[in-house]
């Protein structure tokens, strides 16, 4: 009940905020803060009370309620380590986006917070759903309010950006819906039970070709959300045109729903097909890393630049997911959280700058450190975070992903590592163009206020904490990650046997040891590296 309560709470507060907006501009903000704070408290409570690191009993809490019994559709929510992390991130970034839009949004404040809370409710739904119909439902519920956020409160080119965002995600989402229906019908014909229940649909028997096609439907929806090249073109526009809170939610949370979908649904539902698809996915991941980095380097618009950094970082996620081993997968989870925080922070900085000097053009900035030292120093922290500086969360994530995927595919990983070099170049370019160098124009500009400092300091604490104590996050996610790896590894062994004669024994050994490495073993290793 508490899980359904979370979503009802957010939606209820959303409606209240809209109504309150008719009388007062501050009331909606307070209502939203209140709603999201309760969500955060509940998440912290679950985090602290559940048995950490227990492998038995996958779900910490589940909630089931029948919805449309005629079709086997239920309201089924479940939370495990992975969803717990994601929900925590949702509540955390949600809270910050209300705070960061405190002064930025001046018109139609009530409706703004209505949309904001509904996006968060949809995202929470996506991270908790254990019924595929409900999952798709929540998946779509995220879209419309996000569309409104971009198209009402966005920047100059908002209409175009919001269309593009909506059509890309809606179109790919419908393909996933077809796949869900296909899976539902196949399971129904096989067993006579027509259900959308995730746990019952696991292990549905079907033809390999059918499985591959159904998987593609899911994968397309998820990699469009993950903005993998060649489906990334909606992202720079949407992120650039959205208001700051919108960019934070887009980059911090919406992109993660794609990664979450791949881990939660694609790998366990289609293990065999995922193995067939893995080489393609890994190549796409590497291409995204490099192409995203290259484009990030070429941007003159600060928000666009940060958007392309996301493309590049999401490439690491795709690479890690399809490496099919625990280390890479843990890295992916780490990356999801760390990227949410670091990119969220960069967007907040870009948003604040834009609010003050009315431009995002890098050519007009420069030498701002002297005037706004606080912003400069904090900017430096998050720029370092996104280039993968040791001691910060992103480093742990990228290290684990590269280490894990090296076991699966050496050549691609070596190429992907070049992305780290590129990252250094584009990230330092931000510092150079904005804060150092010659002053292009004489701006009259205020530094961070106390409210903004509060937001940024929280983010700094989060990113440093994750860099120094990664195991706090990793132990929470470990049971879920192991479960996913296990479901893929079963089939992996089978395909391996079939391919045995084609592979050299050496490669064989490396991969097998990689897959069966005990968790704590490399965990300590990575700490040493810190």
């Amino acid at each position: 009940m508490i899980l359904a309560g979370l979503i009802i709470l957010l939606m209820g507060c959303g409606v209240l905020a809209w109504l309150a907006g008719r009388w007062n501009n501050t009331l909606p903000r307070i209502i939203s803060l209140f709603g999201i704070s309760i969500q955060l408290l509940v998440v912290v409570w679950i985090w602290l009370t559940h048995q950490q690191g227990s492998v038995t009993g996958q779900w910490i809490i589940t909630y089931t309620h029948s919805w449309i019994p005629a079709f086997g559709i239920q309201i089924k929510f479940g939370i495990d380590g992975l969803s717990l992390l994601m929900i925590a991130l949702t509540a955390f970034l949600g809270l910050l986006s209300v705070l960061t839009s405190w002064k930025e949004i001046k018109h139609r404040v009530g409706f703004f917070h209505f949309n904001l809370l509904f996006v968060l409710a949809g995202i929470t739904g996506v991270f908790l759903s254990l019924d595929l119909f409900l999952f798709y439902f929540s998946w779509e519920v995220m879209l419309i309010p996000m569309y409104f956020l971009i198209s009402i409160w966005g920047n100059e080119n908002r209409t175009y950006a919001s269309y593009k965002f909506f059509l890309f995600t809606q179109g790919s989402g419908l393909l996933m819906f077809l796949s869900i229906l296909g899976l539902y019908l196949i399971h129904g014909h096989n067993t006579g039970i027509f259900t959308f229940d995730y746990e019952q649909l696991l292990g549905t028997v079907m033809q390999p070709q059918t499985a591959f096609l159904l998987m593609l439907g899911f994968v397309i929806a998820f990699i469009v959300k993950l903005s993998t090249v060649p489906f990334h073109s909606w992202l720079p526009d949407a992120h650039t045109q959205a208001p700051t809170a919108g960019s934070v939610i887009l980059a911090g949370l919406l992109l993660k729903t794609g990664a979450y979908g791949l881990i939660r649904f694609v790998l366990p539902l289609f293990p065999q097909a995922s193995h067939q698809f893995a080489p393609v996915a890994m190549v796409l991941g590497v291409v995204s890393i490099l192409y995203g980095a290259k484009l990030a380097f070429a941007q003159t618009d600060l928000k666009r630049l940060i958007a392309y950094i996301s493309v590049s970082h999401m490439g690491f996620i795709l690479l890690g997911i399809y490496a099919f081993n625990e280390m890479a997968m843990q890295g992916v989870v780490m990356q999801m959280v760390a990227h949410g925080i670091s990119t969220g922070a960069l967007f907040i900085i870009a948003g604040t700058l834009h609010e003050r000097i009315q431009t995002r053009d890098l050519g007009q900035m420069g030498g701002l450190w002297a005037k706004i030292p606080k912003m400069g120093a904090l900017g430096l922290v998050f720029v370092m975070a996104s280039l993968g500086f040791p001691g910060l969360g992103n480093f742990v994530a990228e290290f684990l992903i590269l280490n894990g995927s090296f076991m699966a595919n050496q050549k691609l990983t070596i190429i992907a590592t070049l992305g780290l070099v590129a990252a250094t170049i584009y990230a330092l370019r931000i510092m150079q163009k904005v804060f150092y160098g010659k002053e292009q124009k004489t701006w009259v500009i205020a530094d961070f206020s106390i409210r903004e400092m509060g937001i940024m300091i929280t983010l700094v604490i989060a990113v440093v904490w994750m860099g120094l104590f990664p195991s706090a996050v990793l132990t929470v996610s470990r049971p879920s990650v192991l479960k996913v790896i296990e479901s893929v590894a079963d089939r992996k062994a089978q395909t391996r046997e079939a391919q045995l004669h084609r592979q050299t024994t050496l490669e064989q050994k490396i991969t097998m040891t990689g897959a069966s490495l005990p968790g704590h073993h490399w965990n300590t290793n990575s700490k040493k590296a810190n």
Partner: protein
Amino acid sequence: MSAADILSLLPMVILAGGILLTLILIALRRSHLLIFTAAEIIILAAIVAALLHLNQEPQIIGDIIVVDRFGLYYQILLLSATLVISIFSYISLERLFSDKRKEEYYVLLMLATLGSSMMVISTHFISFFVSIEVLTISLYTLISYYRERDKAIEAGLKYLVLAAMSSAFLLFGMALIYAVSGQMSFHALFAVATNYSGSSNVMLIAGAGLMIVGIGFKLALVPFHMWAPDVYEGASSPVSAFVATVSKGGVVALLLRFFTMTDLYRYQNVMLAFTVIALLSMLAGNLLALQQRNVKRLLAYSSIAHLGYLLVAFIAGKGMGVQAATFYITIYMLTILGAFGVVTILSKTDSEADGTEYYKGLFWRRPLLAALFTLFLLSLAGIPLTAGFIGKYFLLTAGLGNGQWLLAFVLVASSVIGLFYYLRLIVTMISQDEDYQKGLSPGIPSKGGLLTLMVLGILVLGLGLSPGWLIDLVRTLP
């Protein structure tokens, strides 16, 4: 005809008797409000009568009519739609119609509804044809009722010519089938159709083909859709809503019954024709809607596309397909009524609010109304939280359950195209201050109209969240 037969036809008897009564009332006293109230009471009484019969055994009256749950469900649906339309009509007549003769409108409206609701219980070519003609002839007059308006007469004439032609096709098709089989009742046709082969078979299929043309006209399916946008634009919005809901709903019910009872699903050629029609309607409807700047024309094309979607379930065949089609037409009627309702209650004394300029910034001027319109548009687009999504889900499940992957793909692809023009209308409504002063200001919505729309809106949202009861109800229909 026994007493039980007449009793089972009670809703229709009430409606037909009510029409005569209304005529007498008009002769006694010309009062718009009085006649409107009388019409509402008659329609409500008919709905109640139909509701009372819903759980009784099917009543077969000759070979001509069968009163069963399926038929009664559709009757209730059509009558309820007429109820809503008459409320919108009252608003529209009061505001836009300067002439004195407002009262006959309701007679025609009820007569058309009578035709449509007789059609859904017909099981014979005769009853089918008579009821479709009752419907069509009343519609000619309704469409050109506002004769002072620019395009009303044009629209009426266009509908007259094309509907008469489609009736001719229908009749010719029936005649061919009768020539081969000597049968006209659906029941007898089922037994007969299996025994033919060779040239007789060709005649049967040709007859069915001609009937498809006739039915295609009535449902405005591509390529028989040319009349729809002009008629929707020329007629007043309540009448357009009537054409889009009551008139099409009756034909859909008849189509489902006709195909199920005679089992025309056996004929590959016939189903192939329907597949092509469905594909064309979905694609052409949505693509042509992209070009529209007039809301009523846009809704016309959108309704073409929606009937195309519905055919996906129809093609899927008996059982699930029929249920999905029935569910979808219910949702579709709710939603399109809401959309036309918005156009109606925003009308001014000299013009209807059919250009997109009227909708600029509506969200900030009339938030409630704009939110309702957004809800209806999202439901037409099939977005979750609205009933339209559940409807589309039902269609896709029925289609895929029957292995219609091509149709399902096209349905999905064309609804993405469709999304674009619904979104464009929503964007118009949320355009900011500086823009919307340039737009035209629409009329002031009346309280009653707003209340009706809110009821429709709550239904659309409610069915989107908990559609269980309607699904269960639809599944109990044979």
